[in-house]
């Protein structure tokens, strides 16, 4: 069972990495935020899978902390964008 | 090759990357970023030391762990101060020369504290 969970964790990690590549050729800041959101959720999944697979110390709290703070990057981003009056559709990668 | 050694190599690489960014980055905010990267590499190194010092039924030595927790909090306060300095600096240079771009030379000095 533990090796199955680890393989799953590696697969989710790989999908995170591919999702990050999205930022590389993205033209919009919104895409970057989406990728960050994907990494947030994927990271929580990876953490839970690895914690159960390797039977490390209880990591439910770490996952809770990540879930609680996952949205804040986007909130700060959108708030900052509004503050400067610029739009998220502007090129992120000039 | 065990995983502690692996993370040790990771910390070495990150310290190098952070230092490189600190030297070559033109924008002060990027230097703050690089400074944080460098710091996290050093913290990771402490983590490897802690992991190797696992004993007495603990997964890792608690003393380096406590040092790293303190370090992360202090690094945040330094980052907040540095960001405030950079924002103030650009605000002042904008006031002084509203038409021209912010002065890069003046900006480069206040990047990190």
């Amino acid at each position, binding site marked *: *069972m533990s090796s*199955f*969970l680890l393989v*799953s964790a590696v*697969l*989710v990690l790989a*999908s*995170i990495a*591919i*999702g990050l*590549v*999205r930022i590389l050729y993205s033209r*919009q800041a*919104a*895409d970057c*935020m*989406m*990728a960050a*959101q*994907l990494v947030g*959720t*994927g990271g*929580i*999944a990876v953490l*839970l*899978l690895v914690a*159960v697979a390797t039977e490390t110390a*209880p990591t*439910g*709290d770490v*996952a*809770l902390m990540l*879930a*609680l703070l*996952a*949205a804040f990057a*986007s*909130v700060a981003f*959108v708030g900052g*964008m509004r503050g400067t009056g610029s*739009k*998220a*559709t502007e090129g992120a990668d000039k | 090759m065990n995983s502690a050694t692996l993370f040790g190599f990771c910390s070495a690489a990150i310290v190098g990357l952070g230092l490189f960014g600190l030297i070559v980055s033109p924008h002060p905010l990027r230097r703050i970023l690089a400074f944080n990267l460098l710091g996290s590499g050093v913290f990771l190194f402490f983590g490897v030391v802690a992991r190797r010092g696992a004993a007495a039924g603990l997964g890792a030595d608690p003393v380096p762990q406590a040092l790293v927790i303190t370090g992360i909090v202090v690094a945040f306060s330094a980052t907040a101060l540095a960001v405030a300095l950079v924002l103030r600096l650009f605000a002042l240079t904008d006031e002084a020369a509203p038409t021209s771009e912010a002065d890069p030379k003046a900006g480069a000095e206040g990047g990190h504290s």
Partner: protein
Amino acid sequence: MSGLLHAFTILAVSAGVVFFIAGTVGLVRFPDVPTRLHALTKADNVGLGLVVLGLLPYTGGLLGALKLVSVWLLTLLSGAIVTQLIARAVR
């Protein structure tokens, strides 16, 4: 019974991983922001939900299971908010 639980975990976690990969593929391949958001929410909500569901038998106690479920509920909430924020910022 234990064999049945194992099968359940394998099924749920595999389905969750498939949703994560599908969501990523959507994020990379879909043409505009709303469709990409659509793909992202599938990975977020269903993918993590299935992984959490599959891991529930291994949490060792009610408190651990409760924590795991609240992780998922929190992600649902913040995911919904974030997609709204991004969609409105783009519009």
